[in-house]
């Protein structure tokens, strides 16, 4: 039984190989990039606009509202990063309705790459907002004693991000594969529907957690925000 789509190899030449993860990742990237390029080619500012432009505007403003509610007051700055994370993971899990498709997020390599992006982006935005010294000082925030624990939490939450997404997507595919051998017809369809729901929830959670981490890193020195 295949645990991840890494083990499904389409093409191999010596050391180089193209497995299902890479193929479907590039396919998704192509569809997302070409789709948004096609839609944004003819943007209108008037009241008459195409349905696709309406859809994209809804998505972008929705993501911006969510980012703002987490506590980042300038969502335009972060929507490029956080929105891309959300759209990629959501597209990867929504596309499971296509037969023969394997979600690339069911591979630990993909989710580790995404989590490493968050791991790099948090200090990047933090330093950009606060300056280097003030950001580094935030690691010793309550007392100097907390320095190792802050560093450990930085690493462990990256691991948790990667394994959470991987486990959720992999378990969906795995449970469907196991159920297909036991109760072949109706039950796997129900589990596929549940898998679509958990895929969307995981995409939301991944991007919201990244937003929360960035928000925690960028408002170190500001007066305590009013928590709702």
């Amino acid at each position, binding site marked *: *039984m295949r*645990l991840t789509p890494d083990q499904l190899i389409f093409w191999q030449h010596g050391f180089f190989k193209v497995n299902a993860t890479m193929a479907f990742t590039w396919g998704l990237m192509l569809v997302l990039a070409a789709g948004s390029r096609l839609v944004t080619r003819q943007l209108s500012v008037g009241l008459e606009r195409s349905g696709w432009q309406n859809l994209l505007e809804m998505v972008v403003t929705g993501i911006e509202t*969510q980012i703002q*509610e987490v506590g980042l007051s300038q969502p335009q700055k972060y929507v490029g990063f956080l929105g891309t994370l959300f759209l990629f993971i959501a597209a990867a899990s929504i596309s499971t309705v296509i037969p023969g498709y394997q979600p690339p997020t069911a591979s630990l390599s993909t989710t580790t790459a995404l989590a490493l992006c968050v791991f790099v982006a948090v200090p990047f935005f933090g330093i950009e907002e606060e300056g280097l010294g003030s950001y580094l000082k935030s690691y010793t925030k309550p007392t100097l004693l907390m320095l190792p624990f802050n560093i450990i939490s930085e690493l462990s939450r990256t691991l*948790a991000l990667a*394994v*959470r997404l*991987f*486990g*959720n997507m*992999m*378990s969906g595919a*795995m449970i469907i594969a196991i159920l297909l051998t036991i109760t072949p017809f109706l039950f796997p369809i129900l589990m596929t529907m549940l898998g679509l729901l958990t895929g969307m*929830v*995981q995409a*939301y*959670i991944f991007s*919201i*957690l990244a937003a*929360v981490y960035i928000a925690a890193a960028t408002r170190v020195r500001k007066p305590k925000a009013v928590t*709702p």
Partner: protein
Amino acid sequence: MDNLTMIAVASIVIGGLTISLGAIGPALAEGRAVATALTSLAQQPDASATITRTLFVGLAMIESIAIYCFVVSMILIFANPFWNHAIAQTAGK
């Protein structure tokens, strides 16, 4: 009982134990979290957006513990490193 059988038995038993024991804690915790969130939703329907978002993030945190257990049991059953090692040793003999 030779080495291979012992590794197989230990992996399968521990794989089952991992997921069954590891599901107890997160299940109780998620039930508590959802029950509390429902209570506060009933008391303050205006704050539903904040409560729902916090609930989802918290549920993801809690659920990840169960997911870790699931990943460990899947590794034990389908991608066991000790099993592969023992197979390679038997084949090499």
